[in-house]
């Protein structure tokens, strides 16, 4: 199959179907309503289910229920909708069920605006709901990458029995770019027998599966949390993904940026290179687990004077960048959070303001 021109939101919907997910529950919200529009037509064509919940709170528990039965299931929403689902996300994480969430982030807090934003970084990577849990969070920078991440998300969610979140932004959802869908078919989960509450009849082993998040006994809850922690530690070992840009140059500044913002930074890096000023970028593709070591290593390189986190937020990822750099270099933040996206020129000016030797 060749390339087709598709809107990010529609491509995300198609990617889920190609990944073998036939259950989509959602509630419309700008800037991602096209996913629901697309799947309301597409799901019946492939024998799947699209169900619009009465609210995102309901959607969260519909996902919980379907996942508990061993069904591949996903939802898409935007910032305020994800807030409403956050209680269920905590429960789903505690119950260790695989669900894929897509957040096409809009400006916040509150109702905020409908334009692109990355202000849900904390919510996605540090909780949102209550308790010690983590989502595996991936951040696409193009429509094609959104497709690949959605397709990767289902097997990852099942591998870890943990929710996976795709953290996009309004531009990724609204923009059209050429996409190619691989013909690779993703198989149904093989570990379902160990956790799905789909009845004893179909199961190979003769033990009861129980989906729960309540552990009143302190020792049991401690054990549960330790098991969850071991899982998150394993993600940190095995799932860190990132891309580097111009990293082999003698860069004076290291940029850390993801999603739409990272594309602007790439153009800025090219423009600075043309003037003879070298900068490099690490683009986290997973936000949790975060590429701590690669950033620390790059920041430590001789000649690197500053590390700058560019974000469509008032400075959230910069805390993880600081944690990565561990004081080896000065760490700065530059960003916007109203819905406007900084131009490459603005990025260049910001980089130069943070670097002493020109």
């Amino acid at each position, binding site marked *: 199959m060749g*390339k087709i*021109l598709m809107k990010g939101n529609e491509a995300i919907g198609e990617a889920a179907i190609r990944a073998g997910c036939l259950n989509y529950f959602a509630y419309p919200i*700008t*800037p991602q309503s096209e996913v629901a529009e697309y799947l309301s037509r597409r799901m019946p064509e492939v024998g799947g289910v699209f169900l619009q919940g009465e609210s995102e709170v309901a959607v969260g528990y519909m996902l919980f229920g379907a996942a508990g039965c061993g069904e591949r299931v996903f939802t898409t929403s935007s910032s305020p909708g994800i807030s409403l689902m956050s209680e269920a996300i905590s429960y789903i994480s505690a119950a260790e069920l695989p669900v894929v969430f897509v957040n096409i982030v809009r400006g916040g807090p509150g109702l905020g*605006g*409908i*334009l692109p934003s990355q202000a849900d970084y904390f919510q996605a990577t540090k909780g949102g709901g209550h308790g010690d849990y983590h989502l595996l969070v991936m951040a696409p920078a193009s429509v094609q990458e959104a497709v690949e991440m959605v397709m990767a998300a289902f097997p990852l969610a099942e591998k870890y029995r943990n929710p996976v979140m795709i953290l996009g932004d*309004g*531009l990724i959802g*609204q*923009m*059209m*770019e*050429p996409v190619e869908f691989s013909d690779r078919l993703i198989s149904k989960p093989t570990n379902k027998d160990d956790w799905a509450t789909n009845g004893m009849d179909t199961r190979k082993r003769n033990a009861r599966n129980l989906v729960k998040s309540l552990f009143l006994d302190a020792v049991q809850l401690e054990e549960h949390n330790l098991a969850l922690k071991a899982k998150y530690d394993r993600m940190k070992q095995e799932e860190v993904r990132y891309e580097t840009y111009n990293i082999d140059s003698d860069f004076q500044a290291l940029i850390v940026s993801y999603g*739409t913002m990272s*594309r*602007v930074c*790439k*153009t*800025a890096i*090219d423009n600075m290179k043309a003037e003879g000023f070298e900068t490099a970028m690490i683009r986290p593709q997973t936000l949790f687990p975060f590429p701590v070591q690669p950033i620390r290593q790059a920041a430590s390189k001789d000649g690197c004077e500053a590390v700058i986190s560019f974000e469509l937020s008032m400075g959230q990822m910069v805390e993880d960048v600081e944690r990565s750099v561990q004081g080896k270099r000065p760490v700065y933040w530059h960003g916007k959070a109203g*819905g406007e*996206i900084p*131009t*490459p*020129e603005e990025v260049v000016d910001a980089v130069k303001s943070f670097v002493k030797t020109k």
Partner: protein
Amino acid sequence: MQREVMFAGFGGQGILLIGNILAHTAMEEGSEVAWVPSYGPEMRGGTAYCLVVISDKPIGSPIIKNPMHLVAMNRPSLEKFAPVIKPQGVVVINSSLIPVTSGRSDIHELLVPANDIAMDLGSTKVANIVALGAFVARSKIVDFECMRQCVKEQFASREKLIPINMAALDAGQKAAQSK
């Protein structure tokens, strides 16, 4: 090399569609493309615009402050975007609805009475395709014949609309060449 085209007009003039057709054509020719719509809080009947970025290498920032070309279908669009177009860019002005010009001497201005031409063809709905034909004929940003195929594909599910859209493309091309 990267080129950018801003398409702008009223909601309902088919602005997003002609951007889509250009992006599709450029993709078929093997270019990298991005189609970025305006999706801000617009009113019904308000402005609609989209930016098409065409490049021979992966596209970095899809947000462009100074696009190379402009197709302006109404007056507010011309007034908003003409000042930011790069020198030597092509600016198509729908002179049926826009009684003024860009006021710039460093761009290639092309006045096309797109609505009048479309009305002569039988429907003002194809004014957008007339403007697209004129723009591509003048800028040569994509191959005209390749675009013709993409327009046919676009209307494949409504075949009876293909002839009038082909006529609109040709009329646009003619308007560009006669100037």
